[in-house]
């Protein structure tokens, strides 16, 4: 029956494209999580009245985050082509999409991390300081654990956005379901291929959302 509805779908190519989309999404999510938390912590801790209060660093980090958050992703990919070439040694393939994906998503996630950290009760940080905790202890034993549900729901949203970005990265020949839908489906006028690629993207998004919600529920003891 599926063969009837999707006569033009080449399943080998479809699964390969799905694998590439998953590969790009997973890698970029992991690095976005790490860099985003770094940026968010830097923004939070350099705020006035915080442990590393520093106006200059705060303003510069804030500007960096705002600039990269505002550039439309499709333009960011093109702007970053030279950097990608330098880092990856190629401008094509799933790996070539990663720098643009991470640089596009980390500042976005960094803002979410900042919001999550600002939600933490100031009194808890004060309590940790009153016990003689070092800044590193406060970061790893107070700030991150106390904001973890918000950090996870933030990375869930970001990861879903990244699945969408990987499809756009198709224009630089990154591969994945986006490229497949565009080249094989749209340009050759094969609607069923586009449809199948869309269905698979939706399935990936639903699974990510489900996993994210599940983890948040397990973590949240409030």
């Amino acid at each position: 029956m599926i063969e009837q509805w999707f006569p033009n779908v080449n399943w080998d190519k479809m699964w390969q494209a799905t694998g590439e989309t998953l590969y790009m999404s997973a890698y970029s999510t992991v690095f976005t999580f790490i860099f985003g938390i770094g940026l968010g912590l830097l923004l939070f801790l350099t705020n006035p009245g915080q442990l590393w209060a520093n106006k200059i660093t705060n303003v510069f980090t804030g500007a960096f985050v705002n600039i990269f958050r505002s550039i439309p992703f499709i333009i960011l990919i093109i702007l970053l082509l030279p950097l990608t070439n330098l880092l990856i040694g190629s401008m094509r393939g799933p790996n070539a999409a990663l720098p643009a994906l991470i640089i596009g998503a980390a500042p976005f996630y960094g803002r979410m991390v900042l919001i999550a950290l600002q939600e933490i009760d100031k009194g808890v940080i004060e309590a940790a300081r009153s016990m003689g905790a070092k800044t590193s202890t406060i970061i790893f034993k107070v700030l991150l654990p106390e904001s973890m549900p918000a950090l996870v729901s933030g990375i869930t949203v970001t990861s879903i956005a990244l699945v969408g970005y990987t499809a756009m990265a198709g224009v630089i020949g990154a591969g994945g379901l986006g490229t497949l839908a565009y080249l094989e489906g749209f340009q050759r006028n094969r609607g069923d291929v586009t449809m199948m690629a869309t269905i698979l993207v939706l399935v990936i998004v639903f699974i990510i959302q489900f996993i994210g919600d599940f983890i948040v529920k397990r973590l949240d003891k409030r």
Partner: protein
Amino acid sequence: MIQLTNVHKRFQLNRSEIVAVDDVTLAIEEGEIFGVIGYSGAGKSTLIRLLNGLETPTSGSIMIHGQEMTTLKGSGLRDARQKISMIFQHFNLLWSRTVEENIMFPLEIAGVKKSARKQKVKELIDLVGLTGREQAYPSQLSGGQKQRVGIARALANDPEVLLCDEATSALDPETTNAILDLLTDINERLGLTIVLITHEMHVIRKICHRVAVMEAGKVVEAGNVLDVFQSPQADITKRFISQVTDTGDTDAAMTHLQEESPHGKLIKLAFIGERTEQPVLAELIRKFPIDVNIVQGNISTTRDGAYGTLVLQLVGDVAVIEEAIAFLDANEVKTEVLVHD
């Protein structure tokens, strides 16, 4: 043990300067429970945070156990803080950790080994009466239980000083009393010095040995709790004391009585310590041919003894009333004639 000398703390806020602590000099003895009372904005929160370096004074000296706190920085300050712990109005527990893990947190900071941590946590949970709740999360506890966790956490590194920042202000009266009993117990058992700030005279009366009254950053009055209760000097102190002695409708009752029998005399008696247990009033009635109306009575117990007030209306011959008042004075009962206009 704790000596504050000419401590000032000023905050810069949008070009205007706020004086939070204004030339405070205080000495707190080892092993005592010292209370600081004041309304919000009086500077007491800033004062208590100066003691563990969460705030640094603009000028002045803070000595704790011979250690000058104001010059401590970095690891020296962090080590000192492990011996000066703090509990908070809103408990400030980590919601992501269980009761046991919350109490363990300061031990992790101090680098205590895991087996030793477990043992210490067990002792502390027994001490504060939370046995059986080790694996609960803070969200599953009542306010009083949360504060017990806060106290256990504060005691984990065997501190010498415990700072209480409005520790009972978010609790209902019954739970407040239970927590105050626990603090008294800890003070007596562990010989810990406790410094607490509050806006409730009830807390001072119930557990403090000495008290300082703060207003607009200054300490306006300080001394033994019973002394301050007997003869408050500053107006603000009198207002705080009326928190625990006034019943509110006394004034109305007195005006009413004054109107009913304009010849009578209203007097207020203050009983101190053992005097509260003597039958002075019975003797008064037996000795003098006058009518005695009780308008209002009240006894407050402080740590070091009871303190009571009694408002009486004396009706009868003016000369006899004078004699009666002289009798009361002779019995070491402080008598005050209330003049009503």
